[in-house]
């Protein structure tokens, strides 16, 4: 059996409400809440970035996995906000957590699906018996340009998954990826904010890739939506994953546990992985989970998980996503938020 | 060991000296001291400066100063012990004469802090760079943590901290060389801008330019130049951990008490024999803790002592008659020497309006960092 032996998520404590952002740009908050189904989003502290978020998430994953960090043979961090353009994020993480130095480390980037990419490769290496354990992480401190629609959703957080063969808490039964060159969203080298192609990011990008990856995954597995207790899709806003789920034949109830975007925002590479983490926080043994990510550019990675008895032992060993979402929040106004996100031009 | 005396003093005004350079102010103070002492030669020079490198980018200060004093080729050495650099320079001069190596030595201190450096960052180099400063602590921050611990442990009050500033400004108003000659009220201190809770702006010594110099001479030779040599009856120094957090107690300054014990022993006196003292009040809390460590007050009673006026000019033991670092100014490297100058003026009866009655024995306590080094000198009028 190969799958997740330990998982962990980290969400910053700071939040900004959609109303604050809407007020700043003269937009109507009610129509945004209704249209995008977003209420608030996480904001990283000035001292948080993809690396620190990854370290905290992976620390929790290690707690749940109960393994010697030295046994991890690969560490992959998927993000579109790696703090360095050149210098891997994972090297800091392995030195912080006592992994390696005999370890393979890489930074992944594929817009919002870099996290599931890291998970897929970590899983594959264990499956290939290259190593006993591999760590895949999706984390971001997402950027949305001031005044852009993305500003309502771009948030911060991440999740880490240790793949292994022993004491598996969620077995990976099937995977499938669907990729094409679709220029829906990008950020050029050296640019601070991403650009997107408006409505072109919807039907021809998000839905096309998620639905094709999802249909293929169902076909490959010979399963149908009713075989699943839970489903989670990439969550750029509240609306898209609900629509994608509906089109694939999933019910609102199946999506409920992983649909955390209205209060978390879009953690980009950490979006569907954190949704998965929230599901694992309450899934029962034998529950099946359907997951499809999406990354602009564009591609989707799909996974089918089956939860094992092990989940009951590991769940309470680290903080749960819901608790991090609901508790100890510190709300920012737009000015503080702009400072935290370095949107203010300083005399440096 | 030979007996050593101070026979001459000189200092610049302390403050923002925009028109004078680092070397200008040192030379001004040194020339005044030489003139004041009437000596016919100088055997060597010690210069105390904390960070001329960070403040103005100039190291090799000994050579710069000897050159500009026109005294080449006599030896000149820079001495550094953070904010205690001046005291350390004085001690080296003292030791050189006491050992018989030299007869007349100039000990000076200087700092030029207003030439545009990041003063907060430069001063913080006196703390542990890797394990204190790296994490964002500042110097006011370190003393603020001492203050909060002292308040928590002994019930020292915010008003007692403020009373130190009020007293020192009052003394400083009578010192023509002081940076601030204005008095401040308790209310002004309590309402001044918060710098590092619970310390406010008026709890902190200022950023200053300034230089001070004194001439030390063997007691035997002193009689050639003056009828009024002031004898150095103790010179002691002690060290403590560089990090504040490593100390067993966060409310004591062990380097101060260790140096004090040695100094009293050397001088053969008790704390009660001291008539007045200059204490290193870089922050108001520092003066309170120091007066406890010097044995003037019981541990934890330093705050009440200030409030009761025991350390005022006409109190039981006047502290910082000069105005202290708080009001006189704190050009870091010059401070230890300026303290000696205050002792000299008091002991020779030339302190003017701020003259302490019956000043016969005075103590100067100079401290580096958050108390990792301390240098104490006791001077006596003979």
């Amino acid at each position: 059996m190969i799958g997740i032996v330990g998982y962990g998520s980290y969400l910053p404590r700071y939040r900004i409400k959609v109303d604050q952002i809407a007020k700043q740009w003269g937009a109507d908050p009610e129509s945004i809440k209704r249209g995008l189904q977003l209420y608030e989003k996480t904001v990283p502290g000035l001292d948080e970035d993809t690396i620190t978020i990854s370290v905290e998430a992976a620390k929790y994953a290690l707690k749940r996995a109960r393994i010697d960090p030295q046994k991890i043979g690969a560490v992959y961090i998927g993000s579109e906000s790696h703090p360095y353009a050149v210098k891997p994020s994972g090297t800091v993480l392995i030195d912080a957590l006592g992994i390696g130095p005999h370890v393979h480390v890489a930074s992944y980037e594929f817009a919002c699906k870099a996290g599931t990419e890291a998970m897929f490769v970590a899983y594959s290496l264990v499956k290939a018996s290259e190593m006993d354990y591999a760590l895949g992480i999706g984390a971001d401190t997402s950027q949305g340009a001031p005044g852009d629609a993305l500003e309502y959703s771009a948030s911060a957080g991440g999740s880490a998954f240790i793949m292994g063969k022993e004491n598996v808490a969620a077995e990976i039964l099937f995977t499938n990826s669907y990729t094409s060159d679709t220029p829906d969203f990008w950020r050029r080298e050296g640019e601070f904010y991403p650009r997107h192609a408006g409505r072109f990011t919807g039907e021809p990008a998000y839905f096309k890739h998620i639905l094709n990856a999802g249909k293929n995954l169902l076909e490959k597995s010979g399963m149908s939506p009713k075989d699943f207790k839970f489903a989670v899709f990439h969550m750029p806003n509240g609306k898209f994953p609900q629509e994608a789920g509906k089109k694939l034949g999933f019910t609102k109830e199946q999506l409920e546990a992983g649909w955390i975007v209205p209060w978390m925002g879009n953690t980009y590479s950490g979006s569907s992985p954190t949704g998965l983490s929230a599901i694992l926080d309450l899934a029962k043994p034998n529950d099946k989970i359907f997951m499809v990510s999406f990354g602009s550019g564009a591609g989707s990675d799909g996974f089918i998980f089956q939860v094992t008895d092990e989940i009951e032992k590991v769940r309470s060993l680290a903080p749960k996503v819901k608790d991090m979402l609901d508790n100890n929040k510190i709300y920012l106004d737009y000015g503080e938020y702009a400072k935290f996100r370095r949107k203010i031009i300083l005399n440096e | 060991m030979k007996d050593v005396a101070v026979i001459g003093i000189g200092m610049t005004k302390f403050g923002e000296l925009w028109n004078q350079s680092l070397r200008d102010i040192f030379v001004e103070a040194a020339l005044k001291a030489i003139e004041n002492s009437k000596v016919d030669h100088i055997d060597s020079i010690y210069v105390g400066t904390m960070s001329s490198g960070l403040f103005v980018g100039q190291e090799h200060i000994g050579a710069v100063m000897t050159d500009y004093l026109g005294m080449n080729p006599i030896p000149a050495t820079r001495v550094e012990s953070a904010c205690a650099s001046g005291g350390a320079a004085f001690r080296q001069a003292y030791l050189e004469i006491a050992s018989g190596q030299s007869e007349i030595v100039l000990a000076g201190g200087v700092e030029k802090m207003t030439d545009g450096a990041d003063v907060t960052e430069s001063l913080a180099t006196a703390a542990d760079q890797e394990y204190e400063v790296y994490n964002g602590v500042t110097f006011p921050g370190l003393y603020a943590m001492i203050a909060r611990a002292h308040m928590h442990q002994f019930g020292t009050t915010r008003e007692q901290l403020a009373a130190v500033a009020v007293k020192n400004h009052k003394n400083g108003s009578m010192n023509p060389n002081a940076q601030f000659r204005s008095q401040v009220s308790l209310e002004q201190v309590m309402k001044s801008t918060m710098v590092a809770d619970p310390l406010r702006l008026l709890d902190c010594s200022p950023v200053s330019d300034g230089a001070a110099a004194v001439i030390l001479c063997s007691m035997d030779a002193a009689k050639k130049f003056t009828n009024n040599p002031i004898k150095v009856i103790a010179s002691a120094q002690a060290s403590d951990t560089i990090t504040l957090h490593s100390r067993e107690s966060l409310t004591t300054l062990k380097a101060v008490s260790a140096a004090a014990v040695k100094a009293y022993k050397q001088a053969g006196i008790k704390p009660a024999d001291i008539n007045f003292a200059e204490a290193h009040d870089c922050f108001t809390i520092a003066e309170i803790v120091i007066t406890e460590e010097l044995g003037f007050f019981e541990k934890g009673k330093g705050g009440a002592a200030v409030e009761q006026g025991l350390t005022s000019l006409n109190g039981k033991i006047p502290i910082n008659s000069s105005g202290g670092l708080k009001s006189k100014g704190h050009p870091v490297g010059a401070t230890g020497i300026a303290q000696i100058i205050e002792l000299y003026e008091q002991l020779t009866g030339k302190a003017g309006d701020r003259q302490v009655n019956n000043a016969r024995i005075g103590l100067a306590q100079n401290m580096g960092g958050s108390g990792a080094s301390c240098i104490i000198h006791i001077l006596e009028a003979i």
Partner: protein
Amino acid sequence: MISPRYAREIPQRYRLEAGRCTVCNAIYFPPRLICPNCKSKSFEEIKLNEEGTLLTFTIIRVGSEKFSKEVPYAVGIIELKDGVRLTAQLADCAVDKVEIGAKVKLVFRKIQEEGKWGLHCYGYKAILI
């Protein structure tokens, strides 16, 4: 932060590695070459406990240029459960909610950065628990 100097402290800043004197058991953070307590030169490497108590603290309102955009921020002296003390910032806290005796836990955060071009420098901060 100059690279070699930063790299050298990584075991302490990232992993809280300390030295325990094999003779008198005193723990030193960072590790030392000689034990100030018993003068032994023999140490074993240990990892510090991440939980502790706040002994004293301040709120920095005026920081050096490097930290000036982060004020006000809390800094405290923390005694960890194994008795070792260290100085750390308190992250994610309302500065008026901090008090002596508070229970804290160390977390991994970015501590500073060398302008826009230099290293991101990481280490430990404390959060209230």
